[in-house]
């Protein structure tokens, strides 16, 4: 593995090799390139969808930019900026500063799996919410989420989950006049 201090040893990584070139440093920021390509993909998809619009149904009103012209302009601008971003990532010198201030977080490394489990849990919850109902599914979801965050107890999280479920139910029922999905409990009462 190249150490950067011994010119006799072969260079095994492109990044280290690039760092060694004098006069044309190339810094590959994988995240930046992915971001640029994702935006390029979005712009291209928007452009394609714009071409599919059947604006003969709504003729342009007195000229100017029409119902399809406006998203066309947005798509072209997006593609142009996305190409610029990708080129900046490939050829840029400075590292971009984070767009958002970092959160007030501890020193432990991020665990991506926890975010994935959280997302999967809430998607399943959404699918079951209407047929089964809020009062049954919500405490289960909350206990699952607390366990994902590492709380290995059962009693305290369950009590917290039930209290929070009831609190939200009351807040929406009497604060916003929204009846949350009843599911099987509604069917039983009928």
């Amino acid at each position, binding site marked *: 593995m190249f150490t950067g201090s011994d010119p006799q040893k072969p260079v095994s990584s492109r990044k280290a090799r690039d760092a060694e070139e004098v006069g044309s440093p190339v810094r590959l920021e994988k995240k930046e390139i992915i*971001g640029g390509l*994702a935006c390029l993909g979005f712009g291209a998809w928007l452009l394609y969808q714009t071409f599919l619009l059947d604006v003969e149904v709504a003729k342009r009103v007195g000229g100017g930019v029409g119902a399809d012209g406006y998203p066309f302009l947005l798509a072209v601008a997006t593609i142009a900026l996305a190409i610029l*971003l990708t080129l900046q990532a490939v050829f840029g010198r400075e590292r*971009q500063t984070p*767009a958002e201030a970092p959160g007030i977080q501890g020193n432990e490394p991020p665990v991506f799996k926890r975010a994935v489990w959280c997302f999967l849990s*809430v998607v399943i919850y*959404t699918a079951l919410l209407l047929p089964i109902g809020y009062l049954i599914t919500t405490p289960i979801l909350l206990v699952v989420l607390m366990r994902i965050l590492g709380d290995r107890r059962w009693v305290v999280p369950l009590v*917290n989950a039930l209290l929070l479920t009831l609190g939200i139910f009351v807040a929406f029922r009497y604060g*916003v006049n929204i009846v949350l999905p009843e599911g099987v409990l509604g069917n039983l009462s009928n």
Partner: protein
Amino acid sequence: MTAVLETLAHAGSFAGWVPFFSLVIGLVVGILVGVLPGLGPLLGVIMAIPFTFHMDAVSGVALLLGIYQGGSYGGAITATLLGIPGTPMAAATLLDAHPMALKGFASEAVTLSTLGSSVGGFLGGIVLVLTAPVLAKIAIGFGPAETFSLALLGLTAIATLSQGSAVKGLLAGLIGLSLASVGNDPITGFTRFNFGTTYLEGGITFVALLFGLFAISEVLLQFEKPVRAWQAGARIGVAFSTFKTLWTKPIAYLRAALVGVIIGVIPGIGGVTSSFLSYKLAKDFSKHPENFGKGEVEGVIASETANSATTGGALIPMLAIGIPGDPIVAAMMGGLLIQGLTPGPALFFTNREFLGGIFAAFIVGAVLLLPIGLALIPLFVRIIKIPHSLLMATVLLLSIFGTYAVQRQVFDLWQLWLFGIVGYAMRKGGFPLAPLIIGFVLGPIFETNMRRATIIMGDDFFGFMIGRPIALGVMGMVVLSLLFPIAQNLFLRRKGRQADQPA
């Protein structure tokens, strides 16, 4: 002046138990979300929007204003006691408030922060009341070219002046504008990008977008890396001795408020910059700059007063022109739109009662911040100990059912998860979210006025623009805002090269 008096004559619409208690609840909730780790005034405002659906307009907006004002201050409590800013806006406050607390003057530091916030909010409110009606009277004569230029300025300014890459900011803004084009075309009514489903004919659900981008993405990020538990053991009281700074250091308060309001009016800058700029100015003008960073009273006054005055400044362009200057104000604007009120100059002529009530709510809120903030600090110090998992679960449930409450359809929840993933991916990729939400809110104004302007101008672009000096001037500012990051980059590179050169 007539415009101001005509609006203020309707301040009585705030006089009632419901608007008053909505404001008080908003202040308490706002301070709470400012204190609690990982929340903040933006999430607080977003989560409160569904609760405003069944309230009258003045009470609903009073609730949101209270959260905005309280949240802008709340982070100062943890900044003072723990040395960690509860919100980014309190980062400058920390520089002197925490050293003051460490020297045994925690009560003085907290009282001074609260006083600064209250005074800053009050002075910001006075400027809001005096300038917004006047600006609206000027703006009512704006045509499509002027309105489009202002919307473009709002978008480019927030994309290029806020933190991070300007290109990413502009891309986020374009994505926001694109999302706003889903549904019925504002000029012809032609349906675009609904993919054959009736659910999207009215466009993307704003609340789902807002909750998804900000709340769900935050929950996912905090599941990935939870915030550390905070413990505060200090006993805090009210230090009435600090009140004398009102007459011993009046210039400090006034200077900070002026900085805060001016920064607040400019889109994309916000409370963080205003508090640091005000802090720097206070240090530059001080007879003892060496005391800053060691518990200097003027340091705390400068940062907290500016930060709170910014809230008043930020409301001026939103109410008078319909251009939100930051994501919190954009969220509030969404709340107004849901109430059937379109922010902009016309509001000052069609709905003076509402505006008079809002102005009264803002100023009363700034005044009430002082007693409420001071009285509840011992409670807030205990609340910091709430388990983080419970906090995130609460945010998640409020996001889900806040979205469901809009139209009571599960399709909105699928939109919520989609935008949650989009927001999460954007934050991981270093893309700012603020330009996206502002692009979405401004989208209809932007498109309508752009298309109208192109219809009117026909083939004579230059002749059209020459007759519109305001639009030309604003377009000039757009160009400047686009050139600003390039100039900044060149300046920093030059500075870096000079630093690298041997002495």
